[in-house]
């Protein structure tokens, strides 16, 4: 007992005293240091833009705007045009976005409206188990598990998705796609047969990769809808889906649109799944089954064996990719900020 009392209550250099000169100077130094690194972050962004921009300038001068409208990429003939790549980037992302947002928003609604726990509660009620301490907690745990599983989709590296796409998706969708081509080939969408890699398999995998982004951000937006609105809708006698489609989703729509825009930005820049699945052909086609190429895949495939002349044009292509993704990302973050401000106002 005595020993514990004898232990000094304050240590040798207590903090509760006026700072010494040395401490004041080191404090100033530390603040300066953090400020320096804060500046460095901004400088880094500027550096990245300038680095790519400056290296692209020489070929911007020689290639001009013909680079963006040209359709041929032939390093031997010194002919460079990236219209097929721009088309492929936008087209594959658009298809992925359609599939990904249908699935993602459905998942977000499923999670935010707690479908699973309601269903499990009902099921447990049938067996008369609703007050049991263990069973009572089960539905919430299932909800959390489902949310984590969806988030796991984002944790799998894209190169693994690419591998999976090659060995699972392509063999899986080839027969139905070729059936569609044989029977409905007059529709431009099914204009070519799927011989292996192509737009659709790449877009499908891309859709899976952007789905967690859409569902996570949309879910946040849906959960942020004030409970009063929900209660009012049910009070008026709305069914669950009348409440969801008439009140909850419209209130959260800006957040959902923002999530889709951010996912679009991510899809535009996604590289590996497309480099492995899209086929690397410089073709502009509306057919879902034809091979294509994207800007990111072009960079990934050509940089490893780039020479002096090539690096310039590749930097130009990188600049175009950066410009597209920057515009989409900035727009998406602005929309999301707006939605956050709006839901705060609604409360």
């Amino acid at each position, binding site marked *: 007992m005595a020993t514990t009392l004898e232990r000094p209550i304050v240590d040798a250099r207590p*903090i509760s005293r006026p*700072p010494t000169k040395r*401490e*004041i100077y080191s*404090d100033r130094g*530390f*603040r300066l240091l*953090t*400020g320096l*690194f*804060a500046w*460095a*972050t901004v400088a*880094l*962004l500027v550096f*990245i833009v300038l*680095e790519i921009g400056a290296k692209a300038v020489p070929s911007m001068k020689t290639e001009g705007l013909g680079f963006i409208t040209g359709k041929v990429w032939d390093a031997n003939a010194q002919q460079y045009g990236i219209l097929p790549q721009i088309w492929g980037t936008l087209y594959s992302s658009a298809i992925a976005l359609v599939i990904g947002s249908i*699935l993602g928003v*459905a*998942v977000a609604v*499923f999670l935010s409206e707690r*479908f699973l726990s309601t*269903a499990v509660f009902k099921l447990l009620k049938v067996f008369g188990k609703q007050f049991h301490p263990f069973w009572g907690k089960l539905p919430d745990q299932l909800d959390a598990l*489902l949310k984590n*599983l969806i988030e*796991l*989709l984002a*944790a*799998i*590296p*894209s*190169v*693994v998705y690419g591998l*999976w796409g*090659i*060995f699972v998706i392509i063999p899986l969708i080839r027969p139905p796609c070729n059936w569609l081509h044989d029977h409905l080939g007059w529709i431009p969408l099914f204009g070519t047969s799927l011989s292996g890699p192509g737009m659709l398999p790449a877009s499908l995998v891309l859709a899976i990769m952007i*789905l967690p982004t859409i*569902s996570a951000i949309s879910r946040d937006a849906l959960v942020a809808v004030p409970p009063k609105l929900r209660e009012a809708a049910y009070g008026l006698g709305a*069914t669950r*889906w009348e409440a*969801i489609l008439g009140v909850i989703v419209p209130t959260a729509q800006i957040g959902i649109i923002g999530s889709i825009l951010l996912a679009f930005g991510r899809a535009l*820049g*996604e*590289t*590996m799944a497309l480099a*492995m699945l899209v086929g690397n052909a410089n073709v502009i086609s509306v057919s879902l089954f034809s091979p294509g190429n994207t800007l*990111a895949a072009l*960079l*990934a495939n050509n*940089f490893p064996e*780039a020479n002096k002349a090539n690096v310039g044009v*590749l*930097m130009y292509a*990188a600049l175009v990719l*950066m410009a597209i*993704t920057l515009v989409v*990302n*900035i727009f*998406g*973050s602005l929309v999301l900020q707006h939605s956050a401000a709006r839901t705060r106002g609604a409360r």
Partner: protein
Amino acid sequence: MEETIVRQIGRDDATRLAALISTAELQKSLRRPRSLFSFAMNFVTASLTFIALAPLFSVVYMLVVRGVHALSLAVFTSLPPDANEAGGGFGNAIAGTLVMVAIAASMSVPFGILAAVYLAEVGPETKLAKFVRFSAKILSGFPSVLAGVVAYGAVVLLTGGFSAWAGGVALSLLMLPTVILTAEDAIRMVHPRIREAAIGMGATTTQTICRILLPTAMPGILTGVMLAVARAAGETAPLLFTALFSNYWPFSRGASQLSGPTASLAVLIYNFSGSPFDNLKDMAWAASLVLVVLVLAINLIGQSLSRRRVG
């Protein structure tokens, strides 16, 4: 009860009311279009959710089925095999991935934490802070392949060759925004009273931050770092043309090997996935299994840290 209603509103009205109630809106029947619609939409949403989960199970199933049988001890200790040659492994790729992620973390973690300290404590409302947050957000939305392009321009062209250092720089560019944003959140989560107590005792900003705030926020910061590391370990695109690939150990002739091309798991998967040889395809699946287990393990460690902070 019935009689009082009848007395109050008259018999005709009462019958009409009763009819209305019995047929009515309050009744839930699947024969009514609106209930039917609701039921159908429940079904559609539930099935879409499970369709969304199908790829996860399919990927895991394929990794287990095709990856496990190619897994052995040799896989971790030996170099990649030639085409159609039995055995071999990708020990050098595992080592390369770990080395490059370590290089990336050693650059981006101190940088990110110091910038986050500025954002959370030193000048949270300044114009610079707004710029920094904006830059970090833009950087986090950057395509990963562009990080590779930058590292290629800044390191590969400058030093004249592909190297683990260039790969590390590319990965650190990808890790930095995650570290900054999560570390700022973690520092902000520290209860204001703790900070006020320190300041009340006369501590300088530096003492408050280094002795009180950073240790308290450490689990949260580490969670962010873990997330960033997990993401960096799985990145392929920026490594394709910064670290390239190599069939040799990163340390076989001392650390100097790091300034030459270096193998990584992700690039190995990419290279071997397009190969026509079965043994290389098997290697790609085994490497995928190892990579996914590695990434998930780092993720889980990070999440368990953040849970402890809440509890």
